[in-house]
């Protein structure tokens, strides 16, 4: 693939991430933090995030399995995940977490458990989707070349 089409692909991918609400402003902030001292900063942060958040997601899953009605600790775990998601600007994930937490808040209403589970599924799905998309993004980025800077307007 030639460079310009790669670049176009990259731009499109990025645009879609923002348009579809997977990412928000915070991602731009990360890009601005990237500089000569840490040329792969964004990728590093994202990698770190996914490692950590996968663990968190697994914890939540475990918690739901073991004590599905322990909404207090569940809430705390989801809060942690949301906190983490905010670091890279994973907007959709954050929203899903909020919904999840709202259900946890309401606690023992009819069908609470199912709703909680369902909203957690959403969180989980978004997590893997985002992961996939960002992996593609960074792969493309690497292909396009180190000279290529990720900018807001895209290239």
């Amino acid at each position, binding site marked *: 693939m030639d460079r310009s089409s790669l670049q176009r692909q990259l731009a499109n991918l990025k645009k879609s991430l923002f348009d579809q609400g997977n990412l928000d402003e915070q991602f731009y902030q990360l890009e601005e933090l990237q500089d000569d001292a840490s040329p792969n900063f964004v990728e590093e942060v994202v990698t770190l995030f996914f490692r950590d958040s996968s663990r968190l997601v697994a914890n939540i899953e475990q918690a739901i399995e073991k004590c599905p009605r322990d909404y207090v600790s569940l809430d705390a775990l989801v*809060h942690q995940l949301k906190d983490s998601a905010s*670091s890279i600007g994973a907007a959709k994930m954050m929203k899903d977490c909020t919904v999840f937490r709202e259900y946890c808040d309401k606690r023992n209403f009819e069908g609470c458990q199912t709703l909680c589970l369902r909203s957690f599924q959403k969180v989980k799905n978004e997590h893997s989707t985002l992961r996939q998309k960002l992996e593609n993004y960074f792969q493309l980025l690497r292909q396009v070349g180190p000279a290529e800077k990720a900018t807001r307007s895209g290239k």
Partner: protein
Amino acid sequence: MGNPLPSSRAAEAFPAGLRVLIVDDDPTWLKILEKMLRKCSYQGRLLFAPIICEGREGPFFFSVFPLCLFVLDRDFSVQLCTVAVRGGPCTGNLSDRLATDALHILREGKARFDIVISDVNMPDMDGFKLLEHVGLEMDLPVIMMSIDGETSRVMKGVQHGACDYLLKPVRMKELRNIWQHVYRKKMQELKEVETHSIDEVINILRNGSEDIEDRHLMDETEMSSMRKRKDIDNKEFGDQELNDPSTVKKARVVWSVDLHQKFVNAVDQIGFDKVGPKKILDLMNVPGLTRENVASHLQKYRLYLSRLQKQNGGTCGGNMQSDHINKTIKGKFGLKSSTNVQQDWELTKYACTTENFQTHGIVANAAHVSEMNRVAPAQVIASKKTLVNDAQLGLFLSFKGMLPSIREKACKPLHDETPVMQLMQYPEQENYSILEGYSCLANPDLDHEPCFDHFPSSQPLVTSATCTSGKDMKDLYEMKPLQPAMPPMACMIDSISARNAEKVRTSQCYTRD
């Protein structure tokens, strides 16, 4: 592509030597915050490479451990010392004891920090609890962070004494301003010193008056009105300085014994009735002292004298007062044994500590000195272990020298204010070990400049030591000038990069200030 700040802006943005402790259980945020802080003061070299550690999933790149310390030294380069709180494979969180370890590091005191930024949600301890502890024990400004921006939470933070509450995602501009909190805190403490010097006089006299008939001497309202007046003085002072932090011109004057003695001499010379700030100022001939300083001090002095008047129940004359004071001292010494005094001291200290810090909350941001006033004098001395109280130290240390003389020559007619000032330091309190812990003294006679330099100074921020040349002080204490700028901690990194994440390493890290 991010641009490093141009160096001049960096100099403005971050004063030299700001040491930030970040407590957060989210490794991603730590990495980001680290980067942001570096950017705030970016001007060149990074002293350490990031550290690789063993994680649950095998070795992976982890530029900071869950707990991380930033030291921005005087050259604005960042020294990064990472602390292995917990590193090896573990079932749960990497940062199970994050907050506890943070507290431990702070308590150990080997590494000094200027400010703590902490997340509200932490695995082992509520962020608010940590906040309280830090405020109580170390009296550092604490900034809370959270993704949760609910008003009730923010309110809680403020009530527990947080200087600020940042919402995640945190922005660069918010971080760039955190030095203001350190600055503000220092200003408050300087104010406190001045406030307390008068308060202690009042308290001592009040306590003394238990032995004398009229207990109503220290009228609450009178005292509070005097304080209010002082508050206004201080507040105006404070606001000006806060608004214009880069200027040093209106530095707070600490009325040390020497200075006050000059003042009283001048007053006596002029004649109490004809006295005026300008005349006093001229007579005193102290460089850097302004008319305003003298005026406010004169006001306090007058109030103090009128208290004594009432106590005497007679007309006020200079000599009469000193006689009376003599008697008071003698009486005080006689009636109170050393242990009693000590106990009173301790009791007041502990009784007031919690009170102060419970209500301390909202005080932090605004320059409200009124809250501070309710604190017992003892607290200022005993509980603060930071290096900040230069002026205060100067004040107390100079008193120690005076005390022995007062005891031996109790009959010698002492100058008006002097004996009272001495009473500020409870006579039998030999417990100066707290003070000995301080290794930084300031010359109280000079205008006390805020330690906060915006530009590279010869020494980094908190550790700036203007070692005093006061004669009495030299005799009393072995002065240990503070170690200058944070030396590169290269040696410590080696021990860290060894993989075992034993807690022992936390002590190793902080072998020096």
